[in-house]
């Protein structure tokens, strides 16, 4: 089952490599990973998605918690949550394709953020499923480049992950 694990950790050199190293060392997989400092500059927030059974995710969260620099973490998929991923996609946009690409982008509420005579660069945010669906919808077009940010997420309601 797909999991979104969000981790608050000390914003220190080496902390990220411990998290990533743990996944490699214990044979867990990481599908996406995103990390950046928070409003509290001593803390970084790292969000990763992985595929794991209940027992595996229990081990993953326990092992993550064992890392000295990990302050707190949450498995967002345990409850209602909002997830977002950002994608930048550069596609060939010439002739009849130019209008078709624009139309598809509009349907998915994408924004064209860069334009050349031959290409569009589209920005799209949403769940990973939505981004996947957009890529499938673009299968008729020539996709030149795809960049995805990895998943970020937050719990719904008043539940927060904070120190």
């Amino acid at each position, binding site marked *: 089952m797909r999991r979104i694990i969000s981790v608050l950790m000390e914003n220190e*050199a080496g902390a990220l490599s411990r998290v990533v190293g743990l996944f490699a060392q214990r044979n867990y997989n990481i599908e996406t990973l995103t990390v950046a400092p928070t409003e509290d500059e001593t803390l970084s927030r790292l969000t990763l998605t992985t595929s794991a059974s209940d027992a595996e995710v229990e081990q993953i969260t326990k092992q993550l*918690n064992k890392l*000295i620099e990990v302050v707190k973490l949450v498995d967002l998929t345990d409850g209602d949550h909002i997830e977002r991923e950002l994608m930048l996609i550069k596609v060939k946009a010439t002739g009849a394709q130019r209008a078709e690409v624009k139309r598809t982008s509009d349907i998915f509420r994408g924004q064209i953020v860069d334009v050349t005579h031959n290409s569009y660069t589209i920005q799209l945010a949403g769940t990973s499923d939505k981004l996947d669906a957009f890529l499938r919808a673009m299968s008729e077009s020539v996709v030149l480049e795809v960049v995805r940010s990895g998943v970020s997420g937050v719990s719904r309601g008043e539940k927060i992950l904070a120190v």
Partner: protein
Amino acid sequence: MLSGGDILIRCLQEEGVDYVFGYPGGAVLHIYDALFRQNRIQHILVRHEQAATHMADGYARSTGRPGVVLVTSGPGATNAITGIATAYMDSIPMVVISGQVQSHLIGTDSFQETDMIGISRPIVKHSFAVRNAAEIPLAIKKAFYIATSGRPGPVVIDIPKDITNPTDLVEYEYPQQVSLRSYNPAAKGHTGQIKKAVTMLMEAERPMIYAGGGVIQGNGSAELASLTRLLGYPIVNTLMGLGAYPGTDKQFLGMLGMHGTYEANMGMHHCDVLIAVGARFDDRVTNTVAKFCPYAKIIHIDIDPASISKNVTVDVPIVGPVKSVLIEMLEVSQAKIGKRTKTQASRLAEWWAQIEGWRKQDSLHVTPSADGITIKPQEVVQAVYRASQGAAYVTTDVGQHQMFAALYYPFDEPRKWINSGGLGTMGFGLPAAMGVQMAFPDAAVCCITGEGSIQMNIQELSTCAQYGLPIKIININNRSLGMVKQWQDMQYEGRHSNSYMDSLPDFVKLAEAYGHVGIKVERLADLDAALEQAFALKDRLVFVDVIVDRDEHVYPMHVAPNGSMRDMWLKKGVRT
């Protein structure tokens, strides 16, 4: 105002460090100079950095205090890796200080540069890359706190050469205490869970206590013994847990696991309530996990939440320090013990009768050689037990001799049995014994080893000479890598691929070359006298090279793959 080098040494003094095990080199020269200019900490110069880590490890296991290691950058650091991994796998408190090249050279592939933080990352509890001299005190304070608290483990501190420079002085103050918002090991177990566990134990008909190294690390042996005696239940120890409960006691069924006794493994398989105390359901214990303890409800006490339900799903987890949890359990049990019904008492008696039946199998029976001359390896361990009155500190290396020592030398006290259980490091035994002997200069310390393992750190005979360490090395010499050979006999139709030790040295001459005493024993009749002589030479290192039967196997042995705990080879060609 002090230099980084002086600050480091002052911090170690503050932590009460008496010995530092290490080896100098370019990146740590300032630190070595600071060591030279003081006399509170004694530095022990090894002959290879791996031995420094094992010495610190042996010191830590025998005393309960953290072992401290000092190595230089590059090869000094990488040589320490095996010893750090050994300590990590067995949860041994250790602080390793590694020199690093000067800050401005980091990342330039400079001379003797290696990314020690990176290389050691998977095998440390934590590590610190210190960036300036003012950071040293807090790093040291945190390192000792992390290494010794919770589930203990090794901590690496990597220090670039320039920040220990004697001409750069900074303010020095040692922090009195330290707290980390992200690290708060459990201080006590959950009372509700403890009560639930005791109720389950009281209702058990076929109970079993399974105690591991965590009891020793957590100083809970006395409490474990009290609880076990109060309950009157059978107990087994893991390889790491030997000595956690008195090995000669009637309630003790021996070691469990791959080479556990018949009664220990049968008792585990058939029990209906299992209480695991400071043990981690290692694959060398469980055999096939899916077939592990099929009838049992399981209680698990461990300081590390990640140990709970990692390999085997448990019914009642208790996260907390073994000692305080056992004390609380003992209190609850004392109130309830009188309320056990007659039916329960008779069920327990039936269980003991069944166990006594398994005991009659006498799975550790040693058949002397037919010629009456050839020495069996088990007989060597039994003779060491006699010669040392069962009171020695015993370290081992890894292989058949290790299992024979574990099975034939019962330990009545914790911290006397010292071996690399988790990582299984050959070359551990001699330096570990040296660490023990440093901590206990007057104690009998004996390293039971094999001719394969001893050669992995044989150079330390020189260190022993330098510091006058009167260790007794018992070399169980079967001219083979015995455990490898045993598996090749059993699983590869006797094809002994690279398991022979050809071209062995004359160990007696070798010992003498280092200034020690060497004794060679080839006949059973000479064994006891030789060992008595060795132990009588209280101020000399004695290397006793005992030539033994090269075809002996370690039994019992779990049947694998797909076997349960009750599936065992009992002797060659005979299985349950």
